[in-house]
């Protein structure tokens, strides 16, 4: 394993917070009391929680050590399909921390907060421009909540027309949040089989579209990285049947400035700012999932939204048809600022170039990995490609083993076992921020792992060995859950 990214290093152990500290230690200065103790009803009071007492240095060492057990995009390549783990620009973090906007309270009069409202308004406009759609709400806290907003908009649209439709068509390549969001709104998901070429056929949709179907949820390009080239015809079938088309925008990174969501026939779409628009993943959030709609659906958007008139920017309450509020306040503002900053930093040419290079990188990996891993779908793919472990079955090696051994080589593994249509799927999305040399090194690592699968498969089954911990017993965690200390 000479010359690989992965190496061994000194990693320090660190106990749980309540296994350290000493009663009375302080990690935070307290202001001296300037006013007397006021009387309080003892019946309502209690002792407060059993928290450890730690000094400032206890806390600093604890979290510094924990961070060193982690791997981020800043550490190395993270080719997770459908996650778009691109570089998170530091300027965005700095601007989001600008004191005047980081401290502002959401319930003050609009006149006090024109700057913050301007950032939100501009972001609404930018996202409409990038998707080709007409109106945007920045309220949803994440992609899944954006989908929920979309499904609520569907339900409200039909209610406004005096109709009640109960079904939603969802292709078998869809992300799990799609049927979950549909079900939350009382729709029954109807699964659709994708064709042998990885795309949804018009006939498949036409066969099931009826007066009880509210519409279809599509991801484009889909989770195989393949552009659903029948999308306009599919949208036409759904529209002709009185339904609506929902676009899951998780894969927007493939098509910024290249495909137009509205021309594809999409009526409602959510975006993932923590994917396409570079906001950090934070180990699982916070993200943001703005929802964009065609003009006819604008009245149904969650409220409030930012509007602009001669008086300046203001938060406008929704009309009677709005699906209502989804966020306690206006949306995940600190995430929104980062996305605004990203779009302002990139501009029209470089946003488009980002998509072009994302697609170049994925196709380069696809070409270089031919023969190393099995490619189930031969169709052209865009920003991500899906392989499987079929060629490794003979050695008794699975996708999981390949992924775990890649960790020893210094990479976060690609997405595994998704989409469900490919058994043993390995979904690779490099994004545009990886350079050619790093891609070549990744290819070399994967090829080395595949070679090990032939020569010494036990190395894969035992992997990872260079991490702080080896494989963890997930069965035990599920059978005997210990969820707290």
């Amino acid at each position, binding site marked *: 394993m000479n010359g690989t990214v992965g190496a061994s290093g000194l990693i320090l152990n660190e106990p749980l917070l309540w296994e350290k500290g000493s009663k009375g230690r302080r990690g935070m200065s307290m202001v001296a009391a300037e006013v007397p103790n006021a009387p309080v009803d003892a019946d309502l009071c209690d002792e407060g929680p059993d928290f450890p007492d730690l000094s400032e240095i206890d806390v600093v060492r604890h979290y510094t050590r924990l961070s060193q057990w982690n791997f981020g995009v800043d550490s190395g390549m993270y080719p997770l399909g459908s996650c778009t783990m691109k570089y998170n620009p530091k300027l965005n973090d700095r601007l989001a921390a600008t004191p005047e906007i980081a401290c502002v309270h959401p319930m003050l009069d609009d006149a006090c907060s024109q700057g913050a409202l301007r950032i939100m308004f501009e972001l609404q406009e930018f996202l409409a421009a990038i998707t080709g759609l007409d109106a945007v709400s920045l309220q949803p806290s994440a992609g899944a909540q954006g989908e929920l907003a979309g499904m609520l908009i569907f339900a409200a649209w039909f209610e406004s027309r005096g109709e009640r439709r109960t079904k939603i068509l969802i292709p078998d390549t869809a992300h799990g949040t799609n049927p979950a969001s549909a079900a939350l709104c009382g729709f029954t998901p109807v699964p659709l089989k994708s064709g042998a070429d990885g795309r949804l056929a018009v006939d498949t949709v036409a066969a099931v579209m009826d007066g009880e179907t509210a519409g279809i949820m599509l991801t484009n390009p889909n989770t195989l990285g393949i552009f659903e080239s029948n999308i306009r015809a599919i949208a036409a079938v759904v529209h002709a049947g009185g339904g609506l088309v929902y676009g899951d925008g998780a894969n927007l990174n493939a098509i910024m400035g290249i495909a137009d969501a509205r021309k594809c026939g999409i009526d409602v779409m959510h975006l993932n700012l923590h994917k396409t628009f570079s906001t950090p993943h934070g180990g699982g959030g916070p993200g943001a999932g703005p929802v964009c709609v065609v003009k006819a659906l604008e009245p149904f958007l969650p409220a409030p939204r930012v509007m602009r008139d001669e008086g300046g920017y203001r938060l406008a309450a929704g009309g009677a048809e709005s699906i209502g509020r989804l966020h306690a306040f206006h949306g995940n503002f600190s995430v929104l600022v980062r996305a605004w900053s990203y779009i302002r930093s990139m501009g029209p040419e470089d946003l488009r170039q980002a998509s072009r290079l994302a697609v170049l990188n994925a196709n380069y990996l696809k070409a270089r990995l031919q023969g190393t891993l099995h490619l189930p779908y031969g169709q052209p793919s865009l920003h991500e490609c899906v392989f499987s472990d079929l060629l490794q079955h003979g050695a008794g090696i699975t996708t999981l083993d390949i992924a775990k051994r890649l960790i020893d080589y210094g990479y976060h593994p690609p997405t595994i*076992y998704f989409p469900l249509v490919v058994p043993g799927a390995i979904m690779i999305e490099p994004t545009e921020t990886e350079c050619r040399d790093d891609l070549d090194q990744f290819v070399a690592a994967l090829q080395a792992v595949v070679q090990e699968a032939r020569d010494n498969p036990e190395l894969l089954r035992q992997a990872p060995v260079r991490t702080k911990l080896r494989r963890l017993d*997930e*069965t035990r965690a*599920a*059978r005997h859950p210990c969820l707290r200390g």
Partner: protein
Amino acid sequence: MKELSELDFPETVRYTEDHEWAAVDGEIVRIGVSDYAQDQLGDIVYVEMPEIGDIFEKGDEFGTLESVKAVSEIYMPVGGEVVAVNEALVDTPEMINQDPYGAWIVEIRVTDVGEYDELMSAEDYIEMLRG
């Protein structure tokens, strides 16, 4: 996962397409899942069971089996009223992996014994799995 030849399919019980087994004793039918089912699911971590007194029809979903990464619904081979659930599975769900035909899940007072006769024999079930 094992080959078919390595799995057990006793002839003393009957089988469904969804991989449940059923064993009749007068009015009462005991239900569990086949060796094939537990092998496919992997380590079972949790069993969701109905309550005593619940009434189901043949084909109704009456519970789920959870492994770490998957959930499988279980369906009634025959219709009837639940008269017993196997409480031991709450603490040791892995019994289903270790002894799929001993670790029954529910006992039903069957409404129509004819439904039991319609179920597959071991031979037919193995045929189905092969095909």
